[in-house]
């Protein structure tokens, strides 16, 4: 699910073929030269008595010269062939599509902010750690970093790109197989570098369009008094200082957008599956799951926490 060996885009496929060629040719060279060295080291043992002959005799010197020169020439030719192949793959990867679905991805310590831009602000969709893309359409990511350097990498779809403060980098691919592809931050970014995963959900165009439409409609505010109480806990206990929920007064952008929290399969940047029990555990003490995480443990009463989780569970 998370591997160069299982490409799901023409881009990743080109690199995977490049890899197999390199591994094949490289493996032959490795074992060949190593075998040659071992053979050279053991072949002459004890057979010749010319121990005091410190010079290589002129005649065998010339022969060896030819062999060594041939070895170097072959090395150069292999490198030249490889360079050509590499440049052709590089050229393929560098050909940006004319028009592509553009998604803004911003790296934070330690989660991924995702924003689907739209000229109509009401259709703008913010989410986190899960990126839906249509199969068969070119997708371009605009990558930014909010704090330190991160690196976006989903090996099944394309190579990685660093997110560097002060720069906007881009990366594009065209998923050709529907599926869920895991990715993880690849540039060391502090305490929870290990806890900064994400998922790319490549789905057929129709399904993607439906997801997009659902995404731009915020969930209805709860009517059930218990859930309304949970919502009040959210708004008044500090949650809203960092998080936003569409259709409410919570509009902060420090932490992940929670508008459609329950539409996501995982929480805590891919660390926990998105179940009620895990959500409770996470809110209780985030640092127990991700030591160093920026989200504080808010000292709720058990009843308040239950109400809060019940409310969050409605954010479908």
């Amino acid at each position, binding site marked *: 699910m998370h591997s160069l060996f299982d490409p799901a885009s023409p881009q990743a496929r080109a690199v995977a073929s490049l890899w197999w060629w390199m591994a094949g040719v490289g493996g032959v060279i490795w074992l060949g030269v190593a075998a040659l*060295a071992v053979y050279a080291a053991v072949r002459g*043992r004890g057979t010749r008595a010319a121990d005091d002959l*410190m010079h290589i005799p002129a005649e065998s010197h010339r022969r060896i010269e030819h062999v060594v020169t041939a*070895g170097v020439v072959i090395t150069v030719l292999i490198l030249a062939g490889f360079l050509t192949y*590499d440049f052709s793959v590089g050229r393929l990867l560098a050909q940006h599509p004319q028009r592509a679905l553009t998604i803004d991805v911003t790296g934070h310590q330690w989660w991924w902010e995702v924003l689907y831009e739209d000229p109509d602000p009401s259709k703008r969709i913010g989410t986190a750690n899960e990126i839906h893309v249509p199969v068969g359409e070119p997708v371009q990511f605009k990558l930014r970093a909010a704090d330190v350097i991160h690196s976006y990498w989903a090996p099944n779809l394309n190579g990685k790109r660093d997110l560097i403060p002060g720069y906007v980098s881009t990366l594009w691919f065209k998923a050709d197989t529907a599926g869920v592809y895991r990715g993880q931050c690849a*540039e060391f970014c502090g305490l929870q570098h290990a806890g900064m995963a994400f998922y790319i959900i490549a789905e057929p165009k129709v399904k993607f369009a439906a997801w997009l439409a659902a995404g731009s409609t915020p969930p209805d505010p709860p009517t059930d008094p218990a859930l309304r109480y949970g919502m009040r806990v959210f708004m008044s206990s500090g949650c809203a200082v960092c998080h936003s929920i569409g259709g409410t007064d919570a509009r902060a952008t420090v932490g992940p957008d929670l508008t459609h929290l329950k539409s996501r399969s995982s929480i805590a940047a891919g660390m926990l599956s998105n179940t009620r029990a895990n959500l409770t555990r996470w809110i209780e003490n985030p640092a127990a799951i991700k030591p160093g995480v920026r989200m504080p443990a808010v000292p709720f009463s058990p009843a308040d926490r239950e109400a809060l989780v019940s409310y969050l569970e409605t954010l479908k």
Partner: protein
Amino acid sequence: VSGSDPRVLPVDQSIAESDLIGDAAVLDDTWRDKPGLWGWLCAVDHKTIAKRYIVTAFLMFIAGGIEAALMRLQLARPENTLIGPDRYNQLFTVHGTTMMFLFAVPMMTAMGLYFVPLMVGARSIAFPRLNAFGYWTYLVGVVFLYVSLFSNTGPDTGWFAYVPLSGPAYSPGHRVDVWAQLVTFTEIAALCGAVNIIVTAFKLRAPGMSVNRIPPFVWAQLVVAFMIVFAMPAVATGSTLMLAADRAVNMHWFNPAEGGDALLWQHIFWFFGHPEVYIIFLPALGMITPIVETFCRRQVFGYTAIVAANIATAFFAFGLWVHHMFATPIPELGQSLFTAASMVIAIPTAVQIFCWIATMWAGRPRLTVPMLFVLGFLFTFINGGITGVMLASVAFDKQAHDTFFVVAHLHYVLIGGGLMPLFGAFYFWFPKITGRLLGEALGKVHFWLFVIGTNVTFFPMHILGLNGMPRRIYTYLAPSGWGPLNLVATIGALTIATAVLVFLINVVRSLRVGDVAGENPWRSSGLEWATTSPPPSFNFVHTAVVHSRHPLWETTVELEVVSGLRTDRREILVTTTFDAHLDARALGPEPSIWPLYVALCMGLLFIGSIFSPYFVLAGIGASLLGLLGWGWESTRDVEVERVALPDGALVEQV
């Protein structure tokens, strides 16, 4: 006494004849470091300093190894809780920093500081006090880093310390300051060593050792010394002036919000960081040539090609730093230049490998432990070289960059290309340094455990990397499927630890009961074997005159020697840079306390600067005082006197 004879220096008639005769007792009296604690602190003998370097650097290797073993234990299974992220980040940072800055470079330099003067047939290194100063500075750095680590102030942003993570906003406290100043110490030490090696190799060679007769190890050290001179200032500027200034006084060099640039640091760091790899690797290659020559009983095939390959590697090494930055937004066209350069650098290394194999082919190899390590080098390093060429591809590197594939690659290169030749060199030169041979049987156990351990540890990491495992993560989830191969890697790491333990047992045992080596146990060809083992304080009773690349293989009788150097004071023979004609007679310095004093003052300056700018003033003041004392000593001790010789007198004779 004739001015035109290369073997006889013109002598002031007022000097007593007895002071000119090579008398070991008189020479030892002149050259020996003084006894007692004070004498120990004042020591300037290059062999004493180099031995301290070697021992300290090896302790650092063990420290770095323990850090690596702890990390491997943590990663042995998914979601392990042995070490938390805070401790883990310090461990991997200190592991990298230790291995690169405190083990590999100082160790390679130390081997040069010990052997370059011996190999060129000199009485001493060019600047003995500077050499001592370099060691003391390095030692201050070592103590500083490890005191910090044990007081939970170990640096934790990687040995590359990328900004903004290492900047003031995201790394408050003093952890990164420790790293930035540690780098300063090691840079100063490396530069002292480099300057010493350059001048020793250029000016103190035995008469007749023209540039085309310089031993390949000395060539490698010389080339690397120049690389150090060009590479180290980059990181010293980056870490000391820019990163430390960003942190101490908010200079904003690297802060994009204030017009700085976060990517700039990476350019500065890798402009140093890439040549750094070759600074470790080239001396190791230099060690291989004498080992292959000695145990195959043949002069190496392609001496000129090997030397040229060294120089070519050094040039290219400065032109491929961007391949560490292929995932950054540097445009593709610019990156492709660095792809090509990264592939081209494989060619000079291939040339050297083919030359050694050809020498083995033409010779009659004896598979002693040093020779086994050469084969271990070939087997392991070539794998690292090939993955290196793969990583030169931008397209592939964007997949493999910052994953365990790169961890595998760099360890194959540095262990295969650095450590294996180094271990071979230990077995080869241990008898020269200590007078006793290392045990062959334990040596073979060490070799096999080490080669197997290395491959079992690092080969699976290629697959882990391609299966998505990034570097520098302290844990991973079970569904990732990375568990089994990580466990294999951990078992391999413990095998490496066992191998190193076997080596240590061998060293301790051999120091006590090893076979006595004699002058030249391997019947090798270099000048370092033309003196007792261990060499006396004055290196050679007589300064040799050299007629070929293999002085000890060419003469059937005694070596020709120069006479006319005074034995009652520290006279050193200086020769011309290219042809090694007699040039001058220099007087070396006596033992001195000032190097230690100045090193401690610099320690005060750099360590204190973390806490208060006033320490900078105090450190500079105290250092200046020390330099005055040092300089005053120089006016008393050091002089250079040109030898009046007709031009070309030597070349006709040799």
